[in-house]
Every structure is written in C-alpha cells, then in structure tokens.
C-alpha cells in the first residue's frame, strides 16, 4: 500500500503538466483529494508551469478580442458554487480533481441557482409562459451542470457569433447568438444538427433582444458533429432550403 501511494505521488509533476492520460489523471485526483502534501506539490508545480507559459506569451490577432467579448456577452455564466455543494463534492466520490482546476461540471445542488440565472436572460410575460420556461430552464441548467459540458463558438458568415454549451451525456445543446443580422418578418433563423448526409431540425431562434437570442435548447444530440444555422421562411422547414450562414464543428 505504501509503495502504491509513493508511486502515485510521483505523478504530481506529470499531473501539473497535463502529461497523464485520463485514467491516470482520475486516479491521481482521487489520491489528491486525501493527500494535502500532494495538493501543495501540485499547487507549487502549477505555479512553476505558469512561469513557463509566461515566457512564451504572444499577443493574439487583435480581431480576436471583439469576437471573444461578443461571445461572452451571449454566454450564460456559472453561479458561485454553494458552500454545502462544494463540501459534498470535495469529499464525495464524484470528485475527480481539486475544484479550482477547470472543470465544466458543477454540483447538482447548483442547478436551481443556474436555472434562476438562465431565466434572467429570458423575458417573460405570462405565468403560463413562465411555467414552460421554468421547465426549459431546468433542462438548460442540467446541460450547464453536466460533468462533460463543453463550450464552443463560431462566427457567422453574415456577422455575429454563436456559442453553444453541449453535453453528450445529456444529449443536449444550448445555443445562443449575438449580433446576427435582423431578418424581415417572413423569415426566421433555423438551427440544425448536422451529421454526414443529414440535417435534423433543432429549433427556431427567437427574436433577438439587444442583438442577442435567448438560449435555445436542442435535444437528441447523438450522432451530430456540427451545428448549422440557415435563414428559412417564418415557421421553419423540415430540411434546410438555403446555404447555412453558420456551421460550427462540435467538440468531441
């Protein structure tokens, strides 16, 4: 047992440099959760790695900034992790990394809060609509909370940016956009899940508020590897009739 523990401990350096495969990383993180000395080693080595990164600092192309800021404006944020959930997660079996390490997951307990945050993005008028939105928002929160949630974004050929958060575990995707050009009343933006040779309709984008469209939840995310948006007649169609103004490759 001691030998095992010492050998796991030796992985701290490789862990701090992301040089472990997924299985070993998880094993090390389980060890880390109950080894304060290892956590301290990792903290120190991660800070050394930061110096390695700072040494190769390079300014990105200036146009990236506007894209990132626009995408951020359309991207819902995670709520703070509630204290109780943090404690439960840190000691629970599901935890596989120290929680300051980036992980798209959040505690199940945070789902309610996430729902409230997402809800704030949407304008509501009637109780009935509110109820329907609440249901939708819970589904959105579940995607945000999924341990495998990932984020991706892409620019539209007509201007504007789309951002998705998706979870293959939930088989769902949340689509938001900002800055897409306004359409005449008889047209609508339609969302598609694309895979080789097929385009599955995934919903219509709502009217934008301040240039942003409220989150659209698309279910049935199984074989699709891309998301597309086309301009279609009001009410939408069952298969695309125009060239997509945006195609985004989904992360694996």
């Amino acid at each position, binding site marked *: 047992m001691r030998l095992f523990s010492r050998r796991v401990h030796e992985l701290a350096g490789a862990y701090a440099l992301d040089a472990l*495969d997924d299985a070993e990383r998880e094993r090390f993180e389980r060890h880390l959760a109950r080894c304060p000395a290892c956590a301290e080693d990792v903290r*120190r080595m991660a800070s050394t790695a930061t*110096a390695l990164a700072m040494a*190769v*600092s390079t300014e990105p*192309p200036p146009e990236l900034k506007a894209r*990132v800021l626009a995408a951020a404006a359309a991207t819902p944020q995670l709520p703070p992790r509630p204290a109780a959930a943090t404690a439960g997660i840190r000691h629970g079996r599901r935890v596989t990394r120290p929680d*300051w390490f980036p992980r798209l997951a959040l505690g199940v307990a945070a789902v309610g809060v996430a729902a409230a945050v997402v809800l704030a993005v949407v304008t509501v008028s009637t109780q009935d609509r509110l109820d329907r939105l609440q249901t939708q928002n819970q589904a959105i929160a579940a995607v945000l909370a999924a341990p495998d949630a990932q984020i991706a974004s892409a620019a539209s050929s007509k201007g504007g940016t789309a951002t998705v958060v998706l979870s293959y575990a939930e088989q769902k995707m949340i689509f938001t956009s900002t800055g897409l050009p306004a359409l005449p009343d008889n047209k609508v933006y339609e969302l598609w899940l694309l895979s080789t040779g097929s385009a599955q309709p995934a919903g219509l984008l709502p009217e934008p508020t301040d240039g942003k469209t409220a989150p659209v939840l698309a279910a049935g995310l199984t074989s699709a590897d891309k998301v597309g948006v086309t301009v279609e007649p009001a009410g939408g169609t069952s298969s695309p009739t125009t060239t997509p103004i945006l195609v985004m490759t989904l992360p*694996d």
Partner: protein
Amino acid sequence: MTIPTGPRHRISRAEARDASAPRPDGSPPPRDDTDLERLLALVARGDQDAFETLYDKLSGPVYGLVRKVLRDPAQSEEVTQEVMLEVWRAASRFDPGRGSATTWALTIAHRRAVDRVRSESASAEREQRSAPFPFSVDDVAETVEASMDAEQVRRCLEGLTELQREAITLAYYGGFSYPQVASKLEVALGTVKTRIRDGLMRLGNCLGRSS
C-alpha cells in the same frame, strides 16, 4: 542578457527584487496577481468591462501557450477563444486559495490545448513539428516584462539536467503525455515521471531565487 543601465530600469529591478524575495517553500514568487483576482471577482458577477480588461491581461499568455502547443495559428485562435469564454463562464469557480488567477487561466488553457492536440489523428505531422527542445528566441514576447520572464525561465531551464529539461519541455510545450515523452527520449516510464517532478521542483527553486 544585457546589464540594465538606465536609472528607470534600475529602480524597477530593485522594486522587483524587494517584491519577490526567495520563498522558503521554493515556489516562484507570486506574480502581481491581486489585480487580476479583483477583476475576476467582478467578471464572476457578469461585469463585461472587467472582462475586457481581463482579456487584455490574459489573452497574450493564453494565446502564447496555446500556440506553443498547437503551432497552428488558426486553431490556436479558436482554442484561445474557448479558453477566454471558459474564464468568463466559470469565473465564479476561481478559488484564490488554490493558486493565482493567472495559473487558473493558464491551467484551463494548457488542458484545452493538450486535449486538442491529443485528439488530432495526424500525430505523424506533430512528430515533425516538435523540436527536441522547443524553445527559441522567436517565442520571446516583446514587452520588457515578458522578456525578463523569458530570459529567467531560459536560464533556469538551462540549469536542469538535459533529461529533466527535455522531459518538461516536451510535456508542457509539446503537449505530449509522459509515456510519449518516455518513448521519444527512449527512457523508462518511471524515469520520466521522476525527472519531470524533480525538474519542476528545481525549476521552481531557481525561479524563486533568481527573480
């Protein structure tokens, strides 16, 4: 590295030395990160202006690191965008007790870059792109501060054994897993593990001492 001569330079060196005396635990001195942490707290509350300032401060380090690992400028831009969006999205999850804001963001960046590079099927292409000691003068950013960082890091890397240095640079800048590093350097797995660990400790000590 040239000896600084201007009075202005001398003052800033002296200040830098005072602010970052050698630390007993051997880790590099903390960067002036309080500013970033304050910004991150504002970002966590949805402050888009704070995010813009944070972008200005972090996009260089993030893009530089991602590009070092991925090489391809277009992919690096894409991943930088994802990383900055993740910083925006998960700002509330940053815990200052566990490391600096810069380390947090760069940990996200490195993980993303590595995920991307390992999912690439064309690994043969990567073999060609990665030099054994991937660190060149071209990588050095232009600002004085970054040059000082780079110079110091280069000097401390040179203080490692060849195997330590190669293992660390292949893993961190090359994005290779340690079994890949072992096979490239033709040494045993266990050797790579310990060389990375000992090398990082030594590097941390050197950076803490010499700043």
